[in-house]
C-alpha cells in the first residue's frame, strides 16, 4: 500500500507559498490550497475533526477577508492568522491556581486510566511545597491495585504528607476518605489538599458518578483534568464526558516529553473552554511547568520557527 509521506508543515507551506509570492492579494484557490495543508497537518497532529473544521473555517474566512497589513505579504498573513488563532484557543496567559481565601485550598485530580494523575499529585505537591505551602496528598484511588502504595511512595519522594486511611485494592470509600481528609488537613494545618482519584472512562457512568460525589463532598477550589498528550480523536468525547461528569476547572497536559504533537491540547481547550494550566514533561517529580500556549501552537503544527516561516513567505 502506498503511504504518502509529507514533510512537516513548515516545508509544505513554504512550497505552497512559493507560488503565492509577489501576489498582491490571495485568490480563493490559493487560500483553499493553503487551508487544505493546514487541515491535513492538524489531523496528523490528532486535533479533533470538529475542531479542525471550525478552525480552518475561521482561518479561511480571515484570510479571504480584508485584513490589510502593509508589513506582511498575503502568504505571511496566512501564517500569522493561523498562529494567532491557535494561540487564542490555547489561551493567552496560563492561568494560575486559585487559592482559597480560607485554607485549605482543595485540588481534585481526575482523568482517564494511566493519564498521569498520581505522578502529577507528586509534582504539584513538590512545586507547592517549594513555594512555602504545606500540601497534603489524599489517597482516594481505592480501586487500582496498589494505587495507595504508589501515592505513599510519591509523597515520600516529594517530601510531603499523605493521608491514606484505607488500604485500597477495592477496599474503602473514596468519598468518605476525601471528606475525612479535609478535617485532617484543618487539624494538622495543611494549606493545600490534593486528592488523587482512580482513573475512569468517559463512558463509565457509575465511576463518573463517584467522581461527581467526591467533588460534591469536598467542594474543591480546582478540579484538574489530566489528559495524555498522545490521545487521539477520543479527546473530545472524553473531555465532554468529564466536563459533564465532574466539571473540571483546568486542564493538565501530560507526557509532553515525547514526540506526540499534542493536538489534544487544542481539542480540549476548544471544546470545553477550560484553560490548560500545566504541562507534565517527564516521570521525575520536577518535570512540570506552567503551560505555554505559543510553544504548543508551533508544536501542534510542526511549524518550527514561525518567524522564519514568515520571513521566507
Amino acid at each position: 500500500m502506498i503511504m504518502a509521506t509529507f514533510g512537516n508543515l513548515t516545508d509544505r507551506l513554504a512550497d505552497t507559498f512559493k507560488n503565492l509570492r509577489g501576489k498582491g492579494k490571495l485568490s480563493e484557490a490559493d487560500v483553499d490550497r493553503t487551508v487544505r495543508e493546514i487541515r491535513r497537518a492538524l489531523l496528523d497532529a490528532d486535533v479533533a475533526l470538529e475542531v479542525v473544521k471550525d478552525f480552518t473555517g475561521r482561518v479561511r474566512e480571515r484570510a479571504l477577508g480584508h485584513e490589510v497589513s502593509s508589513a506582511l505579504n498575503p502568504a505571511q498573513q496566512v501564517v500569522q492568522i493561523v498562529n494567532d488563532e491557535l494561540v487564542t484557543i490555547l489561551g493567552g496567559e496560563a492561568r494560575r491556581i486559585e487559592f482559597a481565601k480560607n485554607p485549605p485550598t482543595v485540588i481534585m485530580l481526575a482523568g482517564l486510566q494511566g493519564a498521569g494523575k498520581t505522578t502529577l499529585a507528586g509534582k504539584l505537591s513538590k512545586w507547592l511545597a517549594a513555594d512555602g505551602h504545606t500540601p497534603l496528598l489524599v489517597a482516594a484511588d481505592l480501586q487500582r491495585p496498589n494505587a495507595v502504595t504508589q501515592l505513599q511512595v510519591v509523597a515520600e519522594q516529594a517530601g510531603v504528607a499523605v493521608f491514606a486511611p484505607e488500604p485500597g485494592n477495592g477496599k474503602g470509600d473514596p468519598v468518605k476518605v476525601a471528606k475525612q481528609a479535609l478535617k485532617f488537613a484543618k487539624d494538622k494545618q495543611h494549606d493545600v489538599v490534593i486528592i488523587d482519584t482512580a482513573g475512569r472512562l468517559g463512558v463509565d457512568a457509575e465511576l463518573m458518578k463517584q467522581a461527581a460525589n467526591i467533588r460534591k463532598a469536598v467542594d474543591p477550589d480546582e478540579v484538574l483534568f489530566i489528559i495524555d498528550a498522545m490521545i487521539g480523536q477520543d479527546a473530545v468525547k472524553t473531555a465532554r464526558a468529564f466536563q459533564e461528569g465532574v466539571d473540571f476547572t483546568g486542564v493538565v497536559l501530560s507526557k509532553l516529553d515525547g514526540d506526540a504533537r499534542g493536538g489534544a491540547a487544542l481539542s480540549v481547550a476548544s471544546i470545553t473552554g477550560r484553560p490548560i494550566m500545566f504541562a507534565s514533561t517527564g516521570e521525575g517529580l520536577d518535570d512540570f511547568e506552567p503551560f505555554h500556549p505559543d510553544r504548543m501552537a508551533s508544536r501542534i503544527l510542526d511549524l518550527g520557527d514561525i518567524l522564519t516561516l514568515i520571513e521566507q513567505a
Partner: protein
Amino acid sequence: MAASWSLSGALKSMFARDTIDADTWSDLEDALISADFGPDITDSVIEELRASVAKYKTDDPTDLKRMLRETLEERLARLDPTLTLSARPAVVLVVGVNGVGKTTTIGKFAKFLVGHGRTVVVGAADTFRAAAVEQLATWAERGGASIVRPQQQGQDPASVAFQTVERAQRDSIDIAIIDTAGRLQTKSGLMDELGKIRRVVEKQTEIAEVLLVLDATTGQNGVAQAEAFIQHAGVTGLVITKLDGSAKAGFVLAVQERTGIPIKLVGQGEGINDLTGFTPHVFVQNLVG
C-alpha cells in the same frame, strides 16, 4: 453522560441516503478520521472503496457499507494473530509507553494461561516506577502466578529478567512473563535498556513473544511507538488495551500495515477476565456495526 460513540452511529446519516453521492463520501471520510484511522489510511480506504463502487457499478449505500466492512476486515486479517508459546519455558516480554496497561495485561494474561492449565511466573523488571513491584505482585496473586521481585531497590531490570527466566527453568514453570517500566519511544537511554534486557534473556533461551501494549485512546503517535519498539525490542505482537472506552483505535490498522506486526490480544476492562484474542471480524463489527 456521553453515549458510547460508534463509527456505525457516525455512518448512520451516510447510509440513510438512497444513493451514494458526494455527501456520502465526505461523511465516510469524517467517520474514519474520527475513529483515528488517520488521514493517510482514510484516503487509501476511500480510494479503494471508490474503485470498488465503480467496478461493481453500484450506487446503493448498503453495498458501500458491506464493502467497507469487508475491506477493513480483509486488511486487518492479513496477519496471523496466533501467540507462539510452545517453548519451555516460553518467555514473554511486555513493553510499551507509560500507563498503557502493561502490568494489568500481564495479570489478565497470567490468569488466562493458568486457567488453561499452564504454570506462570511473572518478573517485576519495572524497578523504576513507584510501587510497580507491589502492583504486579497483586496481579500475580489474582492470576495465580508466582513472582520474581528485585532483591534491592532500583536493581538493574535486566538482572530481574534473568532471574525470572532462571526461576522458570529451575522450577519447570511453563511460561515466564516479564513486566518492564513504561518508557516513551523517544528516550534513547531507556530504549537501549530494553535492548539489554532482550540480550540478557536471549543468552538463556529464545524469547517466545515480545508484546507491545498500545492504548486504544492513542492517536497517530501509535505508529511512531510501534516503529521504535520494533527496532529496539523486536516486537512480535501487539496488545490493544482500553477498548472498553469510547476510543475505537483505528490507528492500529496503520500500525499493522506499516510494521507487519499482528494484533494478538485485546484488553477491555480493569477486571482480571477482561482480555481476549484478536478477531478482525469482531473488531470491525464494533467499528462499523
